[in-house]
């Protein structure tokens, strides 16, 4: 690095110590920052803006030393202090403009310059925020795909266990019924035994699949719930469907849960998107409200509720709500809530549909509170 670069970096670090929300400006840098005495000729004035985030950014404008001229309406020092009486008419002395050069000062920054810098800074912050969200969204979509594979496999496995149980119950029962009878056809007995064996085998495949899924599963760490909710909402509410929706998030900042934040974020995003979808079809006059609340419940759990002011769910949809491949939406796949349930249960919690007294639809889920939170 050249000496100039080192000086510039040191200056940036010093600028950072100031309030990053507002431009910093001075027309006498070396007074606030003595090391600048070494380069007053190139940088006596400084206007700086800072943007935060993971990659902090400083933009500095420098002004060279400018021998500032103070124009006095006459010589500021009285003639005659040294004793002699001045002549009443000394035009060349009294009206001569007095020049005083001040070392280390630059031309001051105008209000227009400072406010332009401020607008630039706000613009940069907005672009960065947008980029950050886009990146986050892309990550979540990627993670969702990876996770969705596992969660979907697990969700389907769950659903298959019911019919397999039924097949096994019938096969085993039939086998017992005919085995005691002397006229039992050995071929029938044999085939019933095979039906039973094959359903057992299917069950083993499912167990194997679930073990694979749980291997890559959840990294549980104490996670502030409001952070997960905020990031899920900031992504879900980017969608067009959020237009005209008033959202209120009331999650205490001291609530920490044991969670894989990516997975739980996915669950919350899913619930928020469902809520937005539920309100998308409402007539224009109806209010669209989304409310997310959290509270501590017994046995060391935290309950999170996502409520929307939509029309609620019809009875037949409610019953099969969490089943795989069952969707109440036209273009829905019917795996969203099923995956949500798989994830929540892998976290040791539960998820269910509430009956909100004041109408609308509410989903609640529980997660374990992080110890010592």
């Amino acid at each position, binding site marked *: 690095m050249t000496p100039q670069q080192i000086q510039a970096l040191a200056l940036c670090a010093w600028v950072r110590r100031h309030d990053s929300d507002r431009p910093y400006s001075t027309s006498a840098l070396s007074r606030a920052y003595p090391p600048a005495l070494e380069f007053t000729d190139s940088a006596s004035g400084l206007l700086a803006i800072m943007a935060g985030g993971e990659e902090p950014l400083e933009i500095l404008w420098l002004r060279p030393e400018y021998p500032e001229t103070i124009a006095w309406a006459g010589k500021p020092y009285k003639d005659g202090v040294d004793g002699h009486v001045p002549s009443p008419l000394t035009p060349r002395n009294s009206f001569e403009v007095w020049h005083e050069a001040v070392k280390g000062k630059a031309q001051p920054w105008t209000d227009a310059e400072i406010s332009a810098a401020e607008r630039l800074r706000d613009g940069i912050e907005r672009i960065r925020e947008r980029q950050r969200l886009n990146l986050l969204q892309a990550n979540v979509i990627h993670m969702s795909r990876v996770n969705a594979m596992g969660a979907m496999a697990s969700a389907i496995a*769950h659903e298959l*266990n*019911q*019919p*397999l*149980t*039924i*097949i*096994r*119950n*019938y*096969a*085993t*029962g*039939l086998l*017992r*019924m005919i085995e005691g009878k002397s006229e039992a056809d050995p071929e029938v007995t044999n085939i019933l035994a095979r039906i*039973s064996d094959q*359903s*057992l085998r*299917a*069950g083993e495949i499912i*167990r194997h699949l*679930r073990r694979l899924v*749980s291997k890559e599963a959840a990294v549980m760490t104490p996670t502030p719930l409001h952070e997960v909710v905020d990031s899920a909402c900031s992504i879900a509410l980017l969608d067009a469907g959020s237009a005209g929706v008033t959202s209120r998030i009331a999650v205490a900042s001291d609530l920490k849960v044991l969670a894989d934040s990516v997975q739980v974020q996915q669950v919350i995003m899913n619930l928020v998107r469902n809520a937005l979808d539920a309100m998308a079809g409402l007539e224009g006059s109806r209010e669209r409200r989304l409310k997310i609340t959290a509270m501590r419940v017994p046995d060391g759990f935290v309950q999170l509720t996502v409520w929307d002011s939509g029309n609620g769910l019809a009875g037949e949809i409610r*019953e099969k709500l969490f089943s795989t491949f069952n969707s109440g939406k036209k273009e829905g796949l019917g795996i969203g809530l099923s995956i949500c349930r798989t994830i929540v*249960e*892998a976290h*040791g919690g*539960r998820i*269910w549909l509430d009956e909100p007294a004041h109408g609308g639809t509410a989903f609640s889920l529980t997660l374990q509170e992080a110890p010592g939170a």
Partner: protein
Amino acid sequence: VTDARLVHVIDDEEEVCQSTAFLMRSAGLECHCWPSGISFLEGADLMSRGCVILDVRMPGQDGYAVQEELDRRGSRLQVIMVSGHADGAESFKATEAGAVGFLDKPYDGESLLKMVERALSL
């Protein structure tokens, strides 16, 4: 004495109830089916002896809530929990809650019958 041979099956899926009842009858056991925890708690004689095959995950009251209610009312019914969504910790949780047995769905019918016989003898 016949009371002691009574098996209750509680599962929100009717076909699971029916097939389990069929399996119980094949072993000479009388079986009652209930579609939910509430219907069971309201309709069954909780003070009689017998055994309950209880699904862990049901809408509304889950298996643990039913077990808790049985304890609260001082029921003598022995509980076997079954779950199609179990992970490793579930069987531990079930026995801790007071179940005398736990099985993953799909279970082997003969194992369930053995467990039921043992529960009925308790």
